[in-house]
C-alpha cells in the first residue's frame, strides 16, 4: 500500500487531520517538515528527566544533559561524515551558520578587489550576508547564471571562478529550481584558484546522503527543522584549521576559557562558537531526528522521493497552462516543484489549493534575485518529503485543475 516510506506516516499524527474539511496534504516541506513522535517524545523525555544547563554543573542532571547534548553532536558529525566532532558547531539555523561564515571568516579572507561568487538560484540567506562582506571589503559579488533548464551553468562557473575569487558559496539543492548542484566540482574549481567553498545544505541534508569530506567543502550549513527536528537548531560544519582561524561570531558565557578584566581567551573547538546557553533540547532532538532518518536510510529516502518526482512531475507538465520551473526531466529534478498557473497570481492559486486541504508555499521563496531572473514576481511551490504519497500527488494535480477551472469560469 502506498502510505509513505515504510509506513512512516503513522509517526506523524499532524498529517492525519482535515483542513477546510478536506484531508490535509502537506506539501510545504521545503519550508519546514513535520516532526515524528519519536522526536517529540525525546524532547519531552529530556525535559521530564534530564533538564539542566550544559558544561557547567557538577550535579547529575547537568552531566546527563551535557552527555545527551554532546552525543547528538556525534550523530550530526556522522550524518555528514565530518572527520571530527570538533568540526560541528551548533547554530540556530542555516541562516545563522552562513552569517557566521560570512561575517567572521569572510571578512577575514576577503580583501579589496577580491570576488565572491554565488549563483542566480540562491536563497536570500546565501546572498545578503555576502552583499554585506562585499560592501565592507570593497569586493565584488558575482552570480553564476543558469542554463535554459534552470541548472547552474558550469561553463560560466569555470569562467567566473578565477584567481580573484576568494569565496564560492552555493546551495547544494535549490529551494525553487529543484536542482542539485555539483558542489564537489565547484569545490575543486574554487580550490584550484585558492578560494574557499561554502555549501548551503538546507535543502540537501534532509533528502540525500551528505559527505562533507567527499564534497571537500570548507563549510557546510544546514537546519534541523527541515529534517524532522524542531525550529531553532542547526549545524555548521567547517574544516578544523579554518574554524581555528575563524573568530567567534558571538561572545559571552559557555564559549570562554578564561576571562580577565580586559581580555578573554576562548574554549577549544567546537565550543568557542557556542556563546550563551545553547538550544539543548533542540540539539538533542536533532540527534533523535538523525536517528529516525538513519533508520529509514538516506539512500532509501532519496530513491523514494525520486520515485515520487518521476510520478508527479510528468503529471504537472501535462496540465495545460501550468509552467513548472527547473528541469522537466524528472531525473534532474528534486521533490521541490515550483510552478505558476496561466496568468493567475500564485497567492490566488495557493488559497484555492488550501481550500482543498493542500498546503503549498506561494511567494518569492526568499529568492527575489531568482524571481527577477525568471521575470516573475512569485511562484507557487509544492515540496515533497518521504511521508508524502502518490495519492497525495494525484490530489495536488486534481486540485490544480479545479483551481484553474474556478478562476477561468468564476465559480465551481
Amino acid at each position, binding site marked *: 500500500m502506498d502510505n509513505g516510506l515504510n509506513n512512516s506516516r503513522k509517526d506523524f499524527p499532524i498529517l492525519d487531520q482535515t483542513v477546510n474539511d478536506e484531508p490535509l496534504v502537506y506539501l510545504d516541506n521545503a519550508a519546514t517538515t513535520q516532526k515524528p513522535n519519536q522526536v517529540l517524545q525525546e524532547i519531552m523525555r529530556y525535559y521530564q528527566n534530564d533538564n539542566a544547563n550544559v558544561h557547567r554543573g557538577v550535579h547529575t542532571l547537568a552531566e546527563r544533559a551535557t552527555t545527551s547534548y554532546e552525543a547528538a553532536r556525534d550523530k550530526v558529525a556522522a550524518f555528514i561524515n565530518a572527520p571530527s566532532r570538533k568540526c560541528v558547531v551548533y547554530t540556530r539555523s542555516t541562516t545563522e551558520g552562513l552569517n557566521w561564515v560570512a561575517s567572521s571568516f569572510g571578512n577575514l579572507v576577503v580583501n579589496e578587489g577580491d570576488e565572491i561568487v554565488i549563483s542566480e538560484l540562491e536563497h536570500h540567506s546565501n546572498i545578503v550576508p555576502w552583499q554585506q562582506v562585499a560592501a565592507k571589503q570593497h569586493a565584488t559579488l558575482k552570480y553564476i547564471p543558469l542554463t535554459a533548464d534552470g541548472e547552474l551553468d558550469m561553463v560560466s562557473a569555470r569562467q567566473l571562478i578565477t584567481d580573484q575569487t576568494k569565496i564560492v558559496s552555493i546551495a547544494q539543492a535549490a529551494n525553487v529550481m529543484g536542482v542539485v548542484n555539483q558542489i564537489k566540482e565547484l569545490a575543486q574549481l574554487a580550490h584550484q584558484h585558492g578560494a574557499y567553498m561554502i555549501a548551503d545544505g538546507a535543502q540537501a541534508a534532509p533528502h540525500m546522503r551528505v559527505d562533507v569530506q567527499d564534497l571537500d567543502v570548507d563549510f557546510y550549513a544546514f537546519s534541523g527543522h527541515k529534517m524532522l527536528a524542531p525550529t531553532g537548531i542547526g549545524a555548521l560544519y567547517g574544516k578544523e584549521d579554518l574554524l581555528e582561524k575563524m573568530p567567534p561570531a558571538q561572545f559571552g558565557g559557555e564559549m570562554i576559557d578564561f576571562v580577565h578584566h580586559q581580555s578573554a581567551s576562548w574554549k577549544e573547538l567546537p565550543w568557542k562558537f557556542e556563546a550563551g546557553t545553547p538550544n539543548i533540547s533542540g540539539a538533542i532532538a536533532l540527534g533523535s531526528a538523525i536517528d529516525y532518518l538513519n533508520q529509514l536510510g538516506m539512500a532509501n529516502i532519496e530513491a523514494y522521493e525520486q520515485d515520487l518526482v518521476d510520478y508527479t512531475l510528468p503529471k504537472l507538465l501535462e496540465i495545460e497552462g501550468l509552467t513548472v520551473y527547473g528541469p522537466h526531466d524528472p531525473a534532474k529534478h528534486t521533490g521541490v516543484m515550483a510552478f505558476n498557473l496561466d496568468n493567475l497570481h*500564485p497567492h490566488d492559486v495557493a*488559497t484555492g489549493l488550501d481550500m482543498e486541504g493542500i498546503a503549498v508555499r*506561494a*511567494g*518569492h521563496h526568499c529568492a527575489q534575485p531568482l524571481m527577477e531572473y525568471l521575470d516573475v514576481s512569485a511562484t507557487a511551490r509544492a515540496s515533497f518529503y518521504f511521508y508524502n504519497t502518490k495519492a497525495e500527488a494525484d490530489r495536488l494535480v486534481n486540485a490544480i485543475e479545479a483551481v484553474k477551472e*474556478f478562476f477561468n469560469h468564476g465559480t465551481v
Partner: protein
Amino acid sequence: MGLSSLNHLYREVVLDHSQHPRHHGALPAATDHLELRNPTCGDVIDVQAQIKDGVITDLAFDGSGCTISQASASMMTTVLIGQPVDHARELILNFSNLITGKEIDAKMEDELEDAAVIGSVAEFPTRIKCAALAWHALDELLDKKGAAAKDD
C-alpha cells in the same frame, strides 16, 4: 468545504474589479504618489493621488498583483475619489477594521460600497495583507502629506 468556499472570497464583483481594474495606470496630474511592497510575494503597488484643497480629486494605482490586491485597489479608487482627506482616512480605518474581522458601523459599510464585499477576506487570514496593500499605501501617502503640510 473544498473549492466552493472560494466563492466567499472571490465574489463576482471582486473578480470583475480584478479583471477590469478601475483607475489603473498613470495619473499625470497626480500631486502625490507612494509605492508599497507586499513583502510576502514581492508585489508592488504605486498609488497616485491628486489632492486639492483637502479633497482627493483623483486617484489611480499602478503595478500588478493577485486578484485580491488588484480588486481591492480598484475598489479603493472608486470609493475614495471625491472624498475629503479626513473622511477618506476614516473610511480607510473602517476598511482596515472590516478586513481584520472587526465590526464596523453599518453606515460606514454602506459608504465602502463594493469594497465592503472584500471584508470576507477576514475568513482567509493569509490574504489580509493582499487586501490591505493599496489602502495602506494611500494611508501612508496621506500621513506624509499631513506631516509635510505641518512643516510648511
